[in-house]
């Protein structure tokens, strides 16, 4: 059965988006392959002179690159970084990330809406990282976003789906794919996000800080696939305050008295 993830004009078979930060470069290939990853995020920074190794040489061919605008503190800076990312020549997808606060690393939804409008007007496939707020997400959709990326918990925290109820509201109300980005620390949390209808999960630190990094990438892949299958299968109902027998209530070995 075909179950593609559609983001703008692009289609993907994998629903696991991997952040490429914090890994050693020679581990990149194994992580991407074990995770069955088709989309990987990157950041744009001042280049190092002196022919240092470049991350693009370590990412398997055929992967779709999703540059982020990390480091941007407002919409103008995000637009500038996005333009430079496109000039680097790896397509027109962009994850908008605008952060003013350096302690909690929480995104600025207002600036993100502005940047979404400008960059979608410039022809980018825009994926805004945001605080899970339905009203802001609707504004991002109106501004031309192709997916919405609410956080589960602060970036790099591995704390899981702290914002679960708000993300569920967004899944129920928005037409766009909702992709949990940030905070997911364990495969079980990724699975839970997928079970409730997220279109994909993005993770980085959860894998990069694991004891066995390639194996954790695989664990995330399986969890995301399991969660997706469960969502499509429609989980069974919940009974409150009582049980219900799974075995027949007739034909017992003992005669009724």
């Amino acid at each position, binding site marked *: 059965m075909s179950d593609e993830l559609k983001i703008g004009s692009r289609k993907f078979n994998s629903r696991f988006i991997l952040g*490429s930060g*914090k890994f050693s470069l020679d581990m990149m290939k194994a992580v991407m392959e074990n995770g069955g990853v088709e989309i990987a995020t990157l950041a744009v920074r001042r*280049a190092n*002179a002196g022919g240092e190794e470049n991350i693009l040489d370590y990412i398997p061919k055929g992967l779709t690159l999703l540059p982020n605008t990390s480091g941007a503190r407002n919409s103008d800076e995000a637009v500038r970084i996005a333009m*430079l990312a496109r000039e680097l020549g790896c397509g027109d997808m962009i994850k908008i990330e605008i952060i003013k606060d350096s302690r909690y690393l929480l995104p600025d939804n207002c600036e993100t809406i502005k940047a979404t409008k400008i960059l979608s007007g410039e022809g980018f496939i825009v994926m805004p990282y945001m605080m899970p707020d339905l009203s802001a997400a609707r504004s991002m959709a109106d501004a031309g976003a192709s997916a919405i990326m609410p956080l589960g918990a602060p970036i790099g925290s591995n704390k899981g789906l702290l914002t679960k109820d708000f993300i569920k509201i967004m899944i129920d109300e928005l037409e766009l794919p909702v992709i949990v980005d940030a905070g997911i620390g364990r495969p079980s949390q990724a699975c839970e996000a997928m079970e409730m209808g997220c279109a994909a999960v993005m993770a980085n630190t959860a894998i990069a800080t694991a004891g066995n990094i390639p194996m954790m990438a695989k664990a995330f892949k399986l969890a995301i696939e399991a969660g997706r299958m469960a969502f499509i299968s429609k989980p069974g109902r919940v009974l409150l305050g009582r049980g219900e027998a799974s075995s027949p209530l007739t034909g017992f070995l003992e005669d009724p008295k």
Partner: protein
Amino acid sequence: MKVNGKELEPILPMTLKELIFDAGYREDRVAVELNGRIVPRSDYAVVLLKKDDSIEIVGFVGGG
């Protein structure tokens, strides 16, 4: 001239392509902003640098 925030005094005349090569950057792995404007890679060889230019040379790194 400022390159990535550092003062440089290259011997002019010099093209952007020459600066990128001399400074040890890989042309196919960078994007360049000259005085706040992006220079397409195809123009590197024809852009002549000036004494007071401000240049940003960026590339991809790992990030989430």
